[in-house]
């Protein structure tokens, strides 16, 4: 007998095995049986550059990079997509993988996330179910088919006659475990992939291996506890802030007093007071490094007072935001269209009633509880290690390589637990990483950069504002004949790292009219809140975009690419959050004009059964009073609280949502309290009901917080909000009673997204409830006591 290396097609994947000649025929027969079909054909176009499988980059085209089946039948799973906290992606992904592999959930004993030198695929920690899950399903399905073929050979039984349960393949009276089949060695299954792991969305696994129908999933659908929780509650989790390397220095950065300020002179520190402190500058990046963390904090505070900068005042100021937004240049970037049905303009002429309103959504802040932190470690051999927490470690890798003018393969990003970012870091950096690497490269030691609270509020990206002009008409029967909305916003995805910008080092391009392929940094403004009311004959949504505030434009400012400005960025339920506030507020305003109950009014304008079902669910659970708004008891004066009800709905990532809230408003003080909040969600297949419930509750709290509390305060020079007093968020005392109705709908055949959503539709529901209570419609977030008093007095 002699050794033979043979390759076998597995639905477009390629299994390479060293075998003895005897039995090889059966092997080929077994696998060629499964290796035909569309999947194989689709995969042939995948001649893409794979990372080489060096010490710093796993070979993403091998299934072994994704899953290792150990001899004891346990499994290690790896994904470049990392955890982001709102529900556990590792738990949900492992549930999906267990189902596709036909193993119990407990077989996946280890899950490695995010580390770029030992996980595959890259990709963003967002849209987990529609961006991340398909890759995992496919890789697991390829492996499953390969294992079937191998078992067929070993047992001498055709694949069609095999049964699999809990990682044991049986047939012909014999059985073999996955662990025995793989034998603790590499599986050597090449899977077809395309794309670049360091791109925004990461790698895509190609082909169409047979996946299990979701209706047959058994691990999916169970409320398995989050893998991440036990270490968090016991204090044993390693968050990025806990990373300590030998010889590491603590750094605090002295950020400029204005977004566009340039360094004039750096202050000096008293050597007696700070004997070990080291002041480091690179361009406009100024930092203090010290072996003692508290010394670095104190020294940075003193240095900030002694360092001189040029003045800069290129922002409109938040008090003037919506007036200023009228004057921005929306004509340069292409106008994007959402629904475009019939002829809204012409139809307005026939409307019996015409309503028009402008809705205003302020600049928002992701505002993680933990300010950004990272450790940079530039080694003498040129290898750059970055220890970080964020939503796209692989894309950060490319950003660091660009900044340091080195090959991607020389950069290793290690991922840790950390504070939720709600979208802020889905383009790689969180702010501290580049600063840490720059400083480490200068001092030749590992450097830990921990932003203070004010740094995080004032130097991270922001959720862009939105101005929405809506015009709608009702016919004489109270039905909508036309609905037209123009949405205006500033740039929505600027991932240029602030450290590189301050230091004057290379970054990715700034937001542009025509961004590079694969980039999401175009300044055009897309429609993110899809139109759900298909019974409206004429509807038109348009989006108008422009550049970041304060960055200038490439037309007027030669320094545009390196100007910082108020960098807009996606934030939980991006774009849709802003737009749904306008759409769903106007829907209730129209219902009131038509004198129809607002839930019924929505139902009357859609044929989408899933939408009707979620609306009926919140109606039933919330103790909804079926009647038009405003309430017969509505009042705009008095010290006594008036009660109102409001609703809203949303479609996002193939998930239908509806919400009903009850609020109290004290007209004299303007204080709004949300008393009850009921959400109904239909995501199709539910992966983990309890995680979904918790995620929805949390998203709803964020929605109440945005509606009642949040707005970023900035003046002409920069962000003024610097802490939790100047950027208040909802506290536990103001949390309503929350109820969540989960509608499982497996016939959809898809897992809809649900980590985003509630913070998008809750503000409109609260606005509509305030109208119900008072007869006045609030159209500008947040509904602070001062704003509500003004509204009621107007």
């Amino acid at each position, binding site marked *: 007998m002699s050794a033979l290396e043979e390759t076998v097609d597995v639905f477009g994947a390629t299994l390479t095995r060293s075998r003895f000649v005897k039995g090889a025929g059966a092997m080929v027969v077994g696998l060629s049986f499964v290796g035909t079909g569309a999947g194989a054909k689709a995969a042939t176009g995948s001649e893409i550059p794979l990372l080489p499988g060096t010490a710093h980059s796993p070979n993403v085209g091998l299934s072994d990079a994704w899953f290792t089946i150990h001899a004891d039948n346990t499994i290690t799973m790896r994904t470049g997509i990392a955890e982001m906290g709102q529900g556990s992606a590792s738990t949900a992904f492992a549930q999906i993988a267990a189902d596709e592999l036909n193993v119990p959930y407990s077989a996946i004993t280890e899950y490695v996330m995010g580390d770029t030198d030992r996980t595959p695929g890259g990709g963003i920690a967002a849209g987990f179910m529609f961006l991340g899950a398909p890759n995992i399903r496919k890789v697991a399905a390829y492996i499953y088919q390969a294992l079937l073929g191998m078992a067929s050979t070993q047992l001498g039984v055709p694949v069609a006659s095999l049964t699999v349960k809990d990682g044991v393949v049986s047939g012909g009276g014999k059985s073999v475990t996955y662990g025995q089949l793989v034998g603790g060695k590499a599986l050597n299954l090449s899977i077809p992939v395309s794309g670049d792991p360091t791109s925004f969305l990461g790698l895509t696994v190609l082909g169409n291996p047979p996946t299990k129908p979701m209706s047959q999933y058994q691990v999916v659908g169970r409320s398995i506890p989050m893998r991440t929780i036990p270490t968090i*509650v*016991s204090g044993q989790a390693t968050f990025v802030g806990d990373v300590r390397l030998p010889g590491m220095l603590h750094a605090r950065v002295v950020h400029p007093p204005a977004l566009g300020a340039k360094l004039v002179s750096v202050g000096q520190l008293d050597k007696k007071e700070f004997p070990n402190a080291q002041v480091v500058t690179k361009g406009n990046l100024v930092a203090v490094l010290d072996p003692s963390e508290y010394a670095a904090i104190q020294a940075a505070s003193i240095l900030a007072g002694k360092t001189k900068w040029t003045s800069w005042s290129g922002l409109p100021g938040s008090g003037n935001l919506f007036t200023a937004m009228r004057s921005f240049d929306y004509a340069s970037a292409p106008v994007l269209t959402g629904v475009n049905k019939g002829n809204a303009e012409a139809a307005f002429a026939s409307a019996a009633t015409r309503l028009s309103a402008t809705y205003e959504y302020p600049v928002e802040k992701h505002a993680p509880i933990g300010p950004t932190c990272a450790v940079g470690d530039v080694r003498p051999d040129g290898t750059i290690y970055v220890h970080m927490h964020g939503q796209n470690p692989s894309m950060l890798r490319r950003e660091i390589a660009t900044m340091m003018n080195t090959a991607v393969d020389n950069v290793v990003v290690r991922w840790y637990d950390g504070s939720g970012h709600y979208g802020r870091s889905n383009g790689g950096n969180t702010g501290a990483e580049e600063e840490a690497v720059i400083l480490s490269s200068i001092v030749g030691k590992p450097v830990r950069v921990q932003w203070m609270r004010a740094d995080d509020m004032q130097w991270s990206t922001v959720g862009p504002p939105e101005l929405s002009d809506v015009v709608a008409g009702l016919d004489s029967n109270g039905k909508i004949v036309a609905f037209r909305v123009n949405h205006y916003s500033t740039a929505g995805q600027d991932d240029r790292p602030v450290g590189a910008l301050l230091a004057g080092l290379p970054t990715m391009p700034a937001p542009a009219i025509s961004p590079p392929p694969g980039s999401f940094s175009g300044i055009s403004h897309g429609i993110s809140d899809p139109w759900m009311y298909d019974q409206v004959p004429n509807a038109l949504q348009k989006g108008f975009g422009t550049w970041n505030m304060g960055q200038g434009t490439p037309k007027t400012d030669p320094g545009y690419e390196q100007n910082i400005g108020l960098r807009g960025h996606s934030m939980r339920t991006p774009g849709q959050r802003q737009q749904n506030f306008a759409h769903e507020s106007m829907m209730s305003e129209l219902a009131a004009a038509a004198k129809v109950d607002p839930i019924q009014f929505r139902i009357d304008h859609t044929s989408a059964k899933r939408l009707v079902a979620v609306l009926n669910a919140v109606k039933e659970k919330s103790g909804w009073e079926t009647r038009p708004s405003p309430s017969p008891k509505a009042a705009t004066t008095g010290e006594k609280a008036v009660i109102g009800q409001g609703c809203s709905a949303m479609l996002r990532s193939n998930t239908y949502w509806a919400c009903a809230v009850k609020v109290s408003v004290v007209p004299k003080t303007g204080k709004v309290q949300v008393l009850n909040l009921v959400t109904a969600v239909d995501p199709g297949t539910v992966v983990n009901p309890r995680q979904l419930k918790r995620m929805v509750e949390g998203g709803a709290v964020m929605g109440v917080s945005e509606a009642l509390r949040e707005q970023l305060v900035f003046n002409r020079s920069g962000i003024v909000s610097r802490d939790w007093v100047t950027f208040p968020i909802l506290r536990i005392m103001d949390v309503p009673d929350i109820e969540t109705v989960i509608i499982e709908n497996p016939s959809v055949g898809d897992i809809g997204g649900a980590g985003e959503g509630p913070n998008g539709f809750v503000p409109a529901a609260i606005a509509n409830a305030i109208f119900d209570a008072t007869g006045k419609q609030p159209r500008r977030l947040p509904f602070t006591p001062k704003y509500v008093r003004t509204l009621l007095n107007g």
Partner: protein
Amino acid sequence: MASKLKIKVNGLVHSVTASLDTPLLYVLHNELHLHGPRFGCGLAQCGACSVLLDGKEIRSCVTPVAAVSGKAITTLEGLPALWAKERGTTASAPALHPLQQAWIEQQVPQCGYCQNGMMIQAADLLSTTRNPSKLQIKQALNGHLCRCGTYTAIIEAIQQAARTMAKGV
């Protein structure tokens, strides 16, 4: 100027070197490598850094290390032993405090960054109020911020832990 100090943390006396005004948080993190308390704001506004000082919740980010000498500090890591002591058992400490167990069973944390302070404040509350109402829980925890919005789960977990602790198991 750095001084040598002795501080008692989770039942053990530690010798540490730090300037007297160093906030306790940095000593816990950098000298004792205790990672339960976390840096959130440095301003006593969010509660991520909370520890118990003689059983009462304090903000370690603004408490000078010199102010805790002679007193007993309990961090998240020390809650199981604290629970064993409260019950008067001499057996080895349980793996988890009933609050930590309830936090798992109720699946409270999302990102988890703030949860240290929530559990520490809850331990303080339950030491004086054995069966707190929802309103009492809200009042006690109103100085702690969670951006993931886990407040509903926190209330449910504290109520569960209170029931467990009342049984003394």
